[in-house]
């Protein structure tokens, strides 16, 4: 399996070296001006990586990506967005994330100014979704959205836990497999989707019980606290905890510390899963303490540039749907090597984003899978060795 990966990686790298002209040709068509209002703050791993992949893709696809950071303040975000819309030299595209539904006024302003917008990661929800309907209807300039299928991610994570527990026969005295769920929060769509995935998986497994779905605000320390509480409770209830499902990697790592503190050996007595492809998670996977980390959705940044390049070049992704949902992928010990370095070094320029553009006549059809990603990158020297 590893050998095959290596071959693919090597092939991709060779292709990248061989195809710079194609990108140049495409870029020659028109250089795009794209502004991304980043809802996160500098140093926030996910959003940093989104911006970095966006810029890396821009470099590959002849687009200048300007990143404005709103430092996790939605007012700042709105001010930045309004500022962009009001510019004299308006950008071709404005990429927003509807965190806390703060993007809607910006979208409406952009509609008025004729600036095309794309929602990334968080799309319209609730009342806004009802009021504004699908893209390109009420808001003509709202081209669409690109999101991750986090429900499937959550389901995949849960199923991995269940599978392992069944294999290891970690049933409790009641004959059931008991799992702790740790969600980020209860209101953001990104969290709700993951949690729903967990529920889907467990509902499909009659021998599995989620004792609690606890919420740790995405943070490691809170996850450690609630996990400790859970483990203590479980021991009083004479439950043998089989797995911990964490909505992101930091929470998985916090849970891991709690489990260790409770005398459990992660990976041997109990399994944990996380999400985000974080560097630490990958390290723990390598050490055998974390079962998997799902994710890769930071690549939405790069993928969004791909969509907008194609759109600008007349190959509208809306041919399939204005709403592009990208599947995530799980990194386990098995496929760890292919992306670990990429994430560790954040060398996103190694990705040949041009390869992901829609093929002629197949507008709206994209393959953003891990396999495609891996094959888009040249085989690194260290790995090739």
């Amino acid at each position, binding site marked *: 399996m590893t050998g095959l990966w290596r071959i693919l990686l090597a092939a991709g790298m060779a292709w990248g070296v061989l195809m710079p002209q194609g990108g140049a040709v495409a870029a020659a068509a028109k250089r795009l001006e794209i502004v991304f209002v980043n809802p996160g703050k500098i140093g926030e791993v996910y959003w940093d990586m989104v911006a970095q992949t966006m810029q890396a893709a821009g470099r590959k696809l002849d687009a200048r990506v300007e990143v404005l950071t709103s430092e996790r303040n939605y007012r700042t975000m709105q001010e930045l967005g309004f500022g962009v819309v009001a510019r004299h030299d308006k950008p071709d595209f404005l990429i927003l994330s509807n965190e806390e539904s703060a993007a809607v006024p910006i979208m409406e302003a952009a509609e008025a100014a004729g600036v095309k917008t794309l929602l990334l990661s968080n799309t319209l929800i609730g009342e806004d979704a009802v009021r504004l309907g699908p893209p390109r209807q009420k808001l003509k300039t709202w081209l669409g959205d690109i999101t991750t299928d986090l429900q499937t991610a959550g389901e995949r994570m849960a199923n991995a836990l269940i599978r392992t527990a069944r294999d290891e026969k970690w049933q409790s005295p009641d004959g059931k497999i008991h799992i702790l769920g740790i969600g980020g929060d209860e209101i953001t769509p990104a969290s709700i989707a993951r949690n729903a995935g967990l529920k889907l998986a467990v509902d499909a497994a009659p021998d599995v019980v989620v004792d609690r779905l606890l919420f740790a605000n995405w943070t490691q320390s809170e996850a450690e606290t609630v996990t400790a509480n859970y483990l203590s*409770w479980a021991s009083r209830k004479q439950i043998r905890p089989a797995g911990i499902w964490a909505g992101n990697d930091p929470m998985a790592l916090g849970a891991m510390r709690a489990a260790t503190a409770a005398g459990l050996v992660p990976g041997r007595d109990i399994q944990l899963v996380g999400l985000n492809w974080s560097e630490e998670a990958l390290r723990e996977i390598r050490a055998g303490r974390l079962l998997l980390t799902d994710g890769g959705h930071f690549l939405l940044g790069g993928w969004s540039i791909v969509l907008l390049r194609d759109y600008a070049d007349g190959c509208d992704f809306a041919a399939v749907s204005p709403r592009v949902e990208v599947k995530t992928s799980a990194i386990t010990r098995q496929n760890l090597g292919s992306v670990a370095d990429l994430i560790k070094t954040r060398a996103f320029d190694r990705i040949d984003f041009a390869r992901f553009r829609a093929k002629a006549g197949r507008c709206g059809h994209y393959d953003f899978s891990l396999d495609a990603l891996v094959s888009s990158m040249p085989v690194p020297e260290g790995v090739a060795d």
Partner: protein
Amino acid sequence: MSKDEAMTDPERHEPAAPRLRPVVRAMIWATVPVLLLVQLLASTGMEASSFWSQISQLDAHMARVAESRAELIAEPLWKMRYDQVTGVLNEIMNDETIAGATVYDDTGAAIARVVARSADHSIAEISRPVHYSNGNIAVHAGRIVIDYSYAGLYAGAGSRMVRLLVVGLLATFATLIAMRISANIFIGRPLAAMMSAIQRSKQDGRAYPADVKSSNEFGQLARAFNAMQHTTSGALDRLGHMAGHDPLTGLPNRRSLTERLAVASRDGGRPDALVAFCFIDLDDFKGINDTFGHEAGDNFLVHIAERLRGAVEAEDWVARLGGDEFVVIRPEVGHEKAAHAFAQQVLDAISEPIRLHDKQVVPRASIGLAVRRADDPELSHLPTLADIALYHAKSKAPGTVAVLDEALQRDYRRRRDLELAIPTGFAEGQFEVWYQGQVDFESHDVVGLEALIRWRHPEHGVIGPGEFLPLIERSGNNARLTRYVLTEACWALQRLAAAGRPQIRIAINLPPSELADHSLAAELRATCARFNVAVSSLELEITEGSLINNIASATATLHRLRRLGATIALDDFGTGYSSLAHLRRFPLDKVKIDKAFISEIPDSAEDKAIVGVIASLAGTLGLTLIAEGIERPEQAAAMREMGVRFGQGYLYQRPQPLDAMLEWLAKRPKSESRIVTDSPSIAPEFAA
């Protein structure tokens, strides 16, 4: 007077009166405990009900707190955010009544516990289940237990009780003060005013009004009291005057005399000044009453009083002590002679004739005068001293002024001693009967003995009857003495008979009072019978005075005695009335010629003439004559010449006790038993 005092002086009864318990204090004692009790009960009751309602409110509040906390902690508990659970618990710890709170999860483990810094004992506990539910599930997440304390309530109730108590006490105290003040103003002060008026009235016998001006019941009471005091005041004045004055003459009375003397001794002018005290007794006032009636007697007294008032100076003082006794005091006289002159002047004023029922009456009085220095401690004894002098005047020289001197005082003291010694004298047989013989002038035979009483006093020696018989009479012992003499005489008769002298008779003096005693005759007979002597051997001597005081009774007694056989002799004839009619009227056998007529015989022709007349009269009336006081032989010869056959006196023998008499008789030649009962009067009496 002392009896009056006892009746009118209420202070005598005070020791028995109950101790004073002020009405105000009694009211306060009756009110304040009730007030305190009611306040205590009311405040305790109110506080208790408030306390229980607070307890139940606190319980309800705690239940609500527990329920609301249970809702709040349901989610963090279920989601195992135990820090949040603790945070929620910490919020409620601001409530001071909460001592602690614990949250248990569904396994029963305490996952959050908070405890107040100060935990105390009165802990209540409330427990509520914690249910967690969201859209999908509804589970029992655990339990919340809150421990809370009633200490705050207890402390609050305690401090409120203390406050209520203090307020109650203050209110009671204020009420008490208000009661005291108002009771003092409305009750105490008027009562005190009336009390003070009564006290002052008690002190000096005047009726003082109470100074009360209020218009309430006490004001009315005070006005009624004052009206009564006014009435009492007049009555007291009259009473006071009456107590000190004689209603008949308007003169001060005996009671005033005591006060007057006290005044005289207290503020007599010069210390060497003399106080002259005249004790005046009207002579024979009884006679005036008997003669003119009591109304005239009273009139007479009023006249005398007016005269006395007229006879004295302004500074002198006149009083009527009662009956016919008056007192005149001159507070300052220079010397005793002046006092005597003053007394004489008073006596002269009295002795002016008075017209009573168109008849001239010449009042006669005796005055006892006593003079003492004003600073003499014996000043209060002046009435007694003057009375001694008066006694002397009345007994020795009626119608004169007798001045108290040392001799009179000595006499008085001796008289008083003897009078006091009479009972002892009887008891110890100090009275003795002596005998003096009566001799026949012709035969020189002793025909009879006169029994003469003597008092052999252990201190004063042998005392003659002249001195002590009046005392015996005054002390009411006449009858006793007479019985004693009679008994002795009978015994002497027995001895005489035994000595061979049965013919000798014994004469006994009968005092006037005995003649009024109807039992005398019977006793005489009984005594004679007891000694087995004949009544005819007894001779009873009486005086004219005893006859005229009660003629009818005396006559009856004499007849009775004579019928028994006793001889009756009229003693001391010639002095006093010397009524010849008496000699004829009364049943007499013998007449004793008073020694006053004998002593001058044979020198006095008048006395010889009188004795001669008496002797011839006696001869005519058939009365035996006996002369007393024969001291010389020529007297005996003269008597014999004038026809007096018998005599007695020192010529023959002085009175002597029986044994001496018997001895003396034994030495005399015994004449032949010739009974000299030549008194012919006996026979007619028996014949009649």
